[in-house]
């Protein structure tokens, strides 16, 4: 691919033709703020926080959409650019709750980060704010559309990556909002609760229910692991605080998927659940009682023998789990075959 020569903040840059200003700036370590940009998604240039000054251009173009051109001279932090970004932040704050103290997103919120960077501490504009009812009608995440800055990343993830299209823009002007068709509760929509929208929301409009109030993003250790649910093997980070899992974040750089599904994203509360089985249980006198592994395995072996002696080996069957490793599953089917039956199956097939 051909190269183009341009200058960003006085630094000569050689960029690949077709790159955006944003991408070219990144190659020389210049960080341009973005809300609506996601390398995986279509470029929309909606939030306008990434506007830059390009010599000869009448307006301030969005760095995330404009391709580089030979000889371009770009400035990313001039007074004019900073003024436009401050205006945008002020405009967002004028229509955004100021409850960062209790907002789950504090610490990983782009609005906070850029407000800090540009010294914006609220809004100089006063007036009407959105008043959309808080939505907690689904088991997995909260929707606080009053915090939504309409970057549209959730919409594009849902349509273009997941292919579900459960949400889109509705209304126009100040009333614009992201919601389900006909604004039905999210649980009644086609949403599959994969949580991709939650993962890309730059502010606190979409936050996971589990882990609420249990740890800020800067307080948690991120433990890299592989999702135990199915054979896909998506990698993820367990967000751990005081030896407890308070959340899960996807590993977008991972070789598999990057995104998670509803199980991997939200289904980790079993780990510390009081109902979780930690020892085998044997029913004695109509009641389950805790037992040791030796006792339990002896009982199973004894029952297997009885069944096989009385009804033949094909009266036995084994049902394994997708959450076991391949090696475990291999051994499991081997065991069943040694017992003399081919009756073996696996829950991932269901």
């Amino acid at each position, binding site marked *: 691919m051909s190269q183009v020569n341009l200058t960003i903040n006085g630094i000569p840059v050689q960029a690949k033709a077709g790159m955006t200003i944003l991408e070219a700036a990144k190659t020389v370590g210049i960080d341009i703020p973005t809300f609506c940009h996601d390398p995986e998604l279509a*470029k*929309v*240039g*909606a*939030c*306008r*926080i990434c*506007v830059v000054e390009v010599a000869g251009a009448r*307006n*301030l173009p*969005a760095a995330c*959409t*404009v*391709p580089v051109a030979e000889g371009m001279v770009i400035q990313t932090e001039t007074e*004019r650019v900073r*003024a*436009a970004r401050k*205006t*945008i932040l002020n*405009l*967002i704050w*004028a*229509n955004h709750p100021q409850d960062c103290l209790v907002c789950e997103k504090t610490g990983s919120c782009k609005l906070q980060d850029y407000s800090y960077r540009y010294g914006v501490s609220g809004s*100089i*504009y*006063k*007036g*009407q704010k959105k008043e959309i009812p808080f939505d907690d009608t689904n088991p997995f995440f909260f929707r606080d559309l009053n915090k939504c*800055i*309409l970057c*549209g990343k959730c919409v594009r993830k849902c349509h273009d990556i997941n292919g579900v299209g459960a949400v*889109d*823009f509705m*209304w*126009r*002007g*100040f*009333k*614009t909002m992201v919601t389900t068709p006909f604004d039905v509760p999210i649980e009644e929509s086609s949403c599959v609760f994969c949580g991709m929208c939650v993962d890309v929301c730059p502010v606190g409009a979409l936050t996971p229910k589990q882990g609420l109030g249990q740890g800020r993003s800067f307080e948690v250790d991120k433990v890299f692991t592989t999702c135990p649910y199915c054979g896909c093997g998506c990698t993820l980070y367990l967000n751990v605080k005081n030896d407890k899992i308070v959340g899960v974040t996807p590993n977008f750089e991972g070789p598999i998927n990057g995104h998670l599904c509803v199980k991997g994203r939200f289904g980790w509360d079993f780990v510390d659940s009081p109902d979780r089985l930690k020892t085998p249980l044997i029913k004695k006198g109509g009641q389950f009682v805790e037992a040791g592994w030796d006792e339990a395995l002896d009982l199973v072996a004894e029952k297997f023998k009885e069944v096989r002696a009385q009804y033949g080996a094909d009266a036995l069957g084994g049902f394994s789990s997708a959450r076991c490793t391949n090696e475990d599953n291999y051994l499991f089917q081997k065991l069943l075959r040694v017992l003399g039956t081919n009756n073996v199956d696996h829950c991932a097939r269901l």
Partner: protein
Amino acid sequence: MSHRRILFCAGTGCISSGALKTRDALVSELEKRGIRDQYEVVLSGCHGFCEQGPLLIVHPEDTFYCGVQPEDMAELIDEYLLNGRVVERLLYKDPVTGERTSDHMKIGFYAKQKRLVLHNCGVIDPENINEYIGTKGYEALKAALKMERTAIIDEVKRSGLRGRGGAGFPTGMKWEFTFKTPGDKKYIVCNADEGDPGAFMDRSVLEGDPHAVLEGMIIAGYAIGADEGYVYVRAEYPLAVKRLRIAITQAEEFGFLGSNIMGTGFNFKINIKEGAGAFVCGEETALLASIEGERGMPRPRPPFPAISGLWGKPTCLNNVETFANIPLIIREGADSFASVGTERSKGTKIFALTGKINNTGLAEVPMGMTMREIIFDIGGGIRDGKQFKAVQIGGPSGGCLPAELLDLPIDYDSLTQAGAMMGSGGLVVMDENTCMVDLARYFLTFTQNESCGKCTPCREGTKRMLEALERITEGKGESGDIPMLEELANSIKDSSLCGLGQTAPNPILSTLRYFRHEYEEHILEGKCSAGVCRNLVTYHIDAEKCTGCRACTRVCPVEAITGDKKQPHEINIQVCIKCGACMEKCKFDAVILK
């Protein structure tokens, strides 16, 4: 008398003033007299002079009648059609001289116009392709099909035609870009999503001369190598849609559209896509998204539609009036076209004259005509003898220009310099009773409602500007509001995604530029000189003019007016709710605003 032709203007304006009922009355009166077959009664497109509608023209002598009602038809037949005695009372009466004339070309409204694009509007039956062909229709297509494609593009470039949709991009260059972009499939799109309040130029062209637009599109298709076109037209224009459909069917039947056009092997089809009423769909990328079935939201440019447009294919998108100019350029030649207009704005422009002007209607004038000529010579000046104050040109994206600029020649560049824009050609005239802050508030209400909601500066910024204007007009303005408005307006202009956002602050910036004192007066003195902002005015009675007739006391709903019979009355401003009923009722202009 031999076979005569009676033309009724059947533009939307005249239809709503009753043209169809009058036509029916004429036909039935003719039938009663057994002479129906001697007259051809035709419905034409818009003749432009909507103020005087319904309009009727009798050919071949070209007698122009206006304000014709069903009950006038018997007299018209008996006196004029049968006996050649002109019905004086139905002729146009000059509001200044009081003289009546039967020759519409002597009427100020028409005399200064140069009707090139509109030459068929009000003259032919738009539902009959033969009439279009009879006025040299489709001759340009025939000529174009014998030309090299690049020669057509060169001709359009040489003509100097610039986009009539508002921004004024050179049409030939746009065609050339689309032509040069490689691709097996290309599209022509006609933007007929005319949404500016008070604008109806494109509507009238589509209603009055749909074939001209089709011919322009077909020539464009041939020139750039497209085989398919779309007309994106507002569903609120049912008559335009109907006449377009008829025109497309007829053009197909005559072999001007469809496969193997005029035996040349060139194929071109035209589809109609009806818009659902979003103003933003007039923005080209939002329009394309809408045709594709997506929500009408603008997309970033580049890539421009010429490179990647409809369904990602190279697309040439022009406005109705632009396409309607094309047959003219090809038929008469670029030089002839370029002989009209100014150095950098060639040809004519159609304007919709509305507001406080005597002759509301549609006027086509050569580029470079001054605003004064348009408003006073063609428009007949300001209603009720009031003072001209300002003119909003270019719709909600345009700007408001004051009396000092009345001699500004109207062309793309001088308008942009003055802080307005050509826009699609809406011209809203304001008199001394218009408050400029209130006017800016009106336009911002419109743009805020119509902002697609995609980009932050437009969606949130227009709301905050609107709120500031609302505060000022309610008398709650603060001294910091003007600098805040200016700063915010410039930021929105600078950083918005599409043309809607980039131009939305224009009404504020231009009124601040030319009428800053009105803002200051509202904020600092709590006063609205125009007497529009209700919170800032009080009603008083001029004791010298008041005759003590008591009419006002009877209509006052809150009994705020006191005074004895035949003695000057007084309004208790503590009680007054400023409903204005007294002012309306008073025959002596004794109720005044302070």
